[in-house]
């Protein structure tokens, strides 16, 4: 170690700059390594699967012949499960986050709940699958349906949304609340009229991060017993008769894209491996699309706030 008192000021600055540069270089190399891995993955998927993606692939049911097989039931299943997950997890998560941040008294119990919620975000997804299997399917007898899958994934991402909501709410300056109270608003008016709109971009980010995780989950869905071969679609949510929408699809058996991929990867025919790569590519595209949508929405909301 060099004794710092013996160095001139210029040398100290130079040494600080050097270590700064070293750190920046380290960060850059870690970042480029991660990007390289991601890029390799995407390129590998593209080389294998891009040629396979066409209209027929998206509109055909699975088949024993790799060239006739498609992912219609898988992507429809994934989309419907995501709708249920969002409808359940977002309102619940936002409400819980708001309560913890704005209403809950600061005491031991609240602290305990907060710590547990944060910990729950790190619990392996298979645990949620086992919970769902024991509780929803075996105890309540709900069956292996889209609703149960959505419910399971909602549980999985609930902690993520709660934590994101709390962070977003906490970042709003205290002055906003005080100003609202000063104008005579009550607590609910303050939360509904000022806090929530201001926290919306942060909440939205959390929700999308959660959803992106949920769409790629395989373990909990396999645990609750999603099917692999399914050559029909759930009943349409929009019907020709009054009241024009129905919820029969929630009770329908289903499959999702990660499971279809999992099955195809393990088959002997090389054609199925190509199908799996193509499915992976579409899954990746769906995730990116969701993320892009979130960024766009957040941008719009931020603009609207000003």
């Amino acid at each position: 170690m060099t004794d710092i008192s013996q160095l001139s000021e210029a040398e100290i600055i130079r040494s600080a700059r050097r270590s700064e540069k070293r750190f920046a270089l380290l960060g850059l190399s870690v970042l480029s390594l991660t990007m390289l891995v991601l890029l390799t993955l995407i390129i590998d998927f593209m080389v294998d699967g891009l040629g396979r993606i066409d209209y027929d692939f998206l509109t055909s049911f699975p088949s024993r012949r790799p060239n006739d097989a498609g992912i219609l039931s898988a992507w429809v299943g994934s989309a419907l499960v995501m709708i249920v997950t969002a409808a359940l997890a977002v309102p619940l998560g936002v409400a819980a986050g708001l309560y913890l941040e704005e209403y809950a008294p600061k005491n031991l119990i609240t602290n305990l709940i907060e710590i547990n919620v944060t910990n729950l975000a790190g619990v392996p997804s298979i645990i949620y699958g086992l919970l769902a299997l024991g509780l929803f399917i075996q105890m309540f007898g709900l069956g292996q349906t889209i609703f149960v899958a959505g419910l399971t994934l909602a549980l999985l991402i609930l902690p993520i949304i709660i934590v994101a909501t709390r962070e977003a709410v906490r970042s709003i300056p205290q002055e906003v609340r005080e100003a609202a109270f000063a104008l005579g608003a009550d607590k609910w008016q303050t939360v509904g009229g000022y806090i929530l709109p201001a926290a919306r971009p942060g909440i939205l980010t959390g929700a999308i991060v959660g959803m992106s995780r949920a769409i790629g989950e395989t373990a909990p869905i396999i645990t609750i017993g999603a099917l692999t071969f399914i050559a029909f679609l759930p009943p349409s949510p929009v019907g020709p008769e009054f009241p024009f929408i129905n919820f029969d699809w929630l009770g329908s058996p289903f499959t999702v894209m990660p499971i279809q991929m999992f099955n195809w990867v393990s088959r002997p025919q090389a054609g199925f491996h190509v199908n799996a790569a193509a499915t992976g590519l579409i899954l990746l595209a769906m995730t990116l699309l969701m993320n892009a949508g979130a960024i766009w929405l957040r941008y719009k909301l931020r603009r609207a706030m000003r």
Partner: protein
Amino acid sequence: MKTITMAGTLALLAVSGAFHAASAQAVVQADGSSTVFPVTEAMAEEFQKANPNIKVTVGLSGTGGGFKKFCRGETDISNASRPITAAEQKACKEAGVEYIELPVALDALTVIVHPSNDWASEMTVAELKTIWQPEAQGKITNWKQVRSSFPDKPLVLYGAGVDSGTYDYFTAAIVGKEHSSRGDFTASEDDNVLVQGVAGDPNALGFFGLAYFEENADKLKAVKIKLNDAAPAIEPSVENARTGKYQPLSRPIFIYVSKKAAEAKPEVAKFVEFYQDPKHAVELIKEVGYVPLPEAALKAFQERFAKREIGTGFTGSKVGVSVEDLLKEKLVY
């Protein structure tokens, strides 16, 4: 706030919707082994083309997982790559689930080596036992130890994952005791991993189902199997397995049908009859890489289903018996 109220209402509606589930439609539910999956998938695909108003779903829970659901009465048909175990029989019995055991096809387990391997074109069961028995662990590590005429080269082993029916049957047939083998080999539930492993190592030896060998015949070489020193070396093939010549590594694969479902749901009976119909069963089973049952056996099992005869003819994996022999077994429930 409106959004939250709306979402809440939607969630509530969702719950009520889930309860009047899809019971109105005719659905045949099958689940179980990944080995049997391609066969049932092919049947389901063709069956639905012929009967557009009946829906068939096939799951992939593994033989054990499939039986768990089956014995709880959650599925109509359970795919199995091995016969039902005593514990599973008990579970089914306690839940009052009566099952009809139907072998549907044969799978020829194939012992494979690297294509450049010019010494091991045929091996006896005893030699394979020398390699795979538990006592071989850490000791039999060189080809020369298996047969003195083999070259002095390291022996690298690949095999099916220990939770699979394939592993159970292979150990029963080769080692003589089910679920017992050396532990120092590369085990994978994914047969494609084994294909890659053996295709990339000139000193490797592995085993898996015939379908995986046939799809990768350009990268691998199959070992002919001799039942004993005096017996002829038999090549693993659809024909040899079907005629019962390929022993002891051809094994039956099964579907178990719930008797209650077959009687209460006409669509289940219709699907099983379609499954067993020799008119398309033979072609479809060959197409997905498995071995169709001999005609006589097919007919006998059709009869078994028609009479709704319940019970199993097995106590553990049975080795080296032909399908005709299986038919003579007394069924126990």
